[in-house]
């Protein structure tokens, strides 16, 4: 039991430390939310509104950081993330709930696609080493080095403006409301194509390279040689032996990257006006919206921890060696 408790304690301490840092950092920033709000309106909001906003956000009463910290934990343990300043008085949980699914869907699906695609291509390039596929490598390195906001903007200017094949902005058509019906889902998919493509394009290279290298390494393992010697079909050897083993490190990398999905891809969301959580966080940072920042950080932290756990579990399932029995 002790080991399990130790592991759990480790995760808890990590979570505690991360959450505390997440709490402190926004508060160490200069400026305050009201000022940020005023600045956002650049003159269209009178300075006379300052007093009312301070009263609104409850910033007129001074609290020590420690007091705020204990309050924060108190509320957190009640499941209350507080009210966002930027969207006052919308609860942070609601802001997150409305933007998280978009990020999860876009980044989740594209992460999955790039993982599957990259791993697949990686399997073949690794297996057929020395064939023409090796010439894919420099291309992929080049693509992987392109910052994806740049790629996204180029994509917009080409495929949304020059040849208007895809919408340039948004997560769905403005005439629709989110619902589980065909018009909405098809529109969401259609809007997701361009941002999705840029993410896939810039992320896929990493998976290809990783998988290829693992494939090459594993291909010279004895058990692959044995499989060849056994006269098994090429498919069986390639997938059942080489890829099956080579994929292990990629799988845990994949699980970890699932954790970072929640962090969103700020830049893609920004460039494509995508209603996801990454942009929301960016706005929160700009507006010094402590509750929102903390809330998003919390979600990210927890999901990264969860992804770590998932990676452990996945590895355990896929690699019998880690499944030790007595």
């Amino acid at each position, binding site marked *: 039991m002790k080991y399990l408790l130790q592991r759990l304690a480790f995760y808890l301490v990590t979570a505690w430390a991360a959450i505390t840092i997440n709490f402190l950092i926004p508060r160490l920033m200069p400026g305050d939310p009201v000022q940020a709000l005023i600045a956002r309106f650049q003159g269209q909001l009178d300075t006379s509104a300052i007093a009312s906003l301070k009263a609104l956000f409850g910033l007129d009463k001074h609290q020590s950081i420690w007091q705020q910290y204990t309050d924060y934990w108190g509320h957190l343990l009640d499941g209350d993330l507080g009210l966002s300043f930027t969207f006052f008085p919308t609860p942070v949980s609601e802001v997150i709930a409305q933007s998280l699914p978009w990020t999860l869907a876009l980044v989740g699906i594209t992460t999955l696609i790039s993982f599957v695609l990259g791993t697949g291509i990686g399997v073949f390039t690794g297996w057929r080493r020395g064939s023409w596929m090796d010439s894919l490598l420099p291309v992929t390195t080049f*693509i992987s080095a392109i*910052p994806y906001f740049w790629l996204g903007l180029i994509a917009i200017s080409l495929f949304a403006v020059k040849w208007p094949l895809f919408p340039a902005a948004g997560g769905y058509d403005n005439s629709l409301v989110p619902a589980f019906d065909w018009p909405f889902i098809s529109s969401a998919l259609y809007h997701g194509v361009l941002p999705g493509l840029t993410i896939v394009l810039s992320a896929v290279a990493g998976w290809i390279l990783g998988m290829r*290298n693992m494939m090459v390494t594993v291909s010279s393992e004895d058990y*692959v040689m044995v499989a060849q*010697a056994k006269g098994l079909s090429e498919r069986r050897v390639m997938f059942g032996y080489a890829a099956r083993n080579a994929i292990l490190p990629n799988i845990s990398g994949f699980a970890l990257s699932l954790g970072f999905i929640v962090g969103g891809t700020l830049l893609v969301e920004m460039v494509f006006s995508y209603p996801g959580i990454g942009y929301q966080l960016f706005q929160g940072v700009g507006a010094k919206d402590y509750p929102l920042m903390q809330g998003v*950080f919390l979600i990210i932290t927890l999901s*990264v921890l969860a992804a770590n756990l998932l990676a452990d579990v996945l590895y355990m399932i896929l690699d019998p060696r880690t499944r030790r029995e007595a």
Partner: protein
Amino acid sequence: MAVTAPEVAVLATADTPAPSKRRFRFLRGRKTVIGLGILLFFVLIAVIGPWIAPYDPDTMGKELLQPPSGAHWFGTTQTGQDVLSQILVGTRGVLVVGFTAGILATILSVLIGVSAGFLGGTADEVLSLLSNVFLVIPGLPLIIIIASFVSDAGDLLIATVIALTSWAWGARVLRAQTLSLRRRDYVEAARATGESTWRIILFEVMPNLTAVIASGFVGTVIFAILSEITLAFIGVADISNWNWGTVLFWAQSNQALAQGAWWWFVPAGLCIALLGMSLALINFGIDEFVNPRLRTETGGSRKVRMRVGFTPVARATDKAGARGRHDKETRS
């Protein structure tokens, strides 16, 4: 007596990293050479960029938003600034931040990762916890926040912040590597000889991590450069310091692409991609050096397709044939 030992040679290439004479052997790969070539080019630009820049990048000229021409190779901006000069001058900032962050993060990750791996026990627990916390904390937002901490977000500050948020991964990898090295016989042997712990870490363990550290360093540099450019692009970093990110920032906030001014937007992005690619290629070279199985280049001129499990049969034509004939002669 000739001191050559075949079995030794195989082992040496298989898993022993970098004996110093061969330490630079990774330079032999074609990828590495191309990567280093591009990198050197950019380093050169970083050094002499401000001198060879044809214009002051800040100076607003009369020719507004002109496409590339003889006078302005990369065209001009909305305010008549010379894009080429901005990119030339901006190279230094990119490389300074990238390498400073890379060096700082590498130092941090080595300090923490190697100590954690080698010391074990409570020290390991604490240090692993530390790196895990830093892994879990969302990186880019943290950089954005810390960068806005200090009113004057200069290059070095940005680099430091990037380093602070990016060392954890390397520390984790190094810890794992160190853990496996710690159990190696030669480390134990050094201990049995009576070496002190710090000497073992410094002189027995660390040199064997060179390749891992190097590839971690290159990875961090890529990450740092992309982060810096991203920060500049979203306007968090100091916009008055020229770097490729600021060029992109100005281009984007003036909607260069929509205005058809591709020359303002495209070159900086390509430079980033090229630099990133060069670093990735170098990293590749290091990987191949560490794990020779990954090498793709086949030295020979003869085109024999290697295929796992089906050894090619290339019946002697040129040299091997000559040798075969020679052997036969001796035999008869």
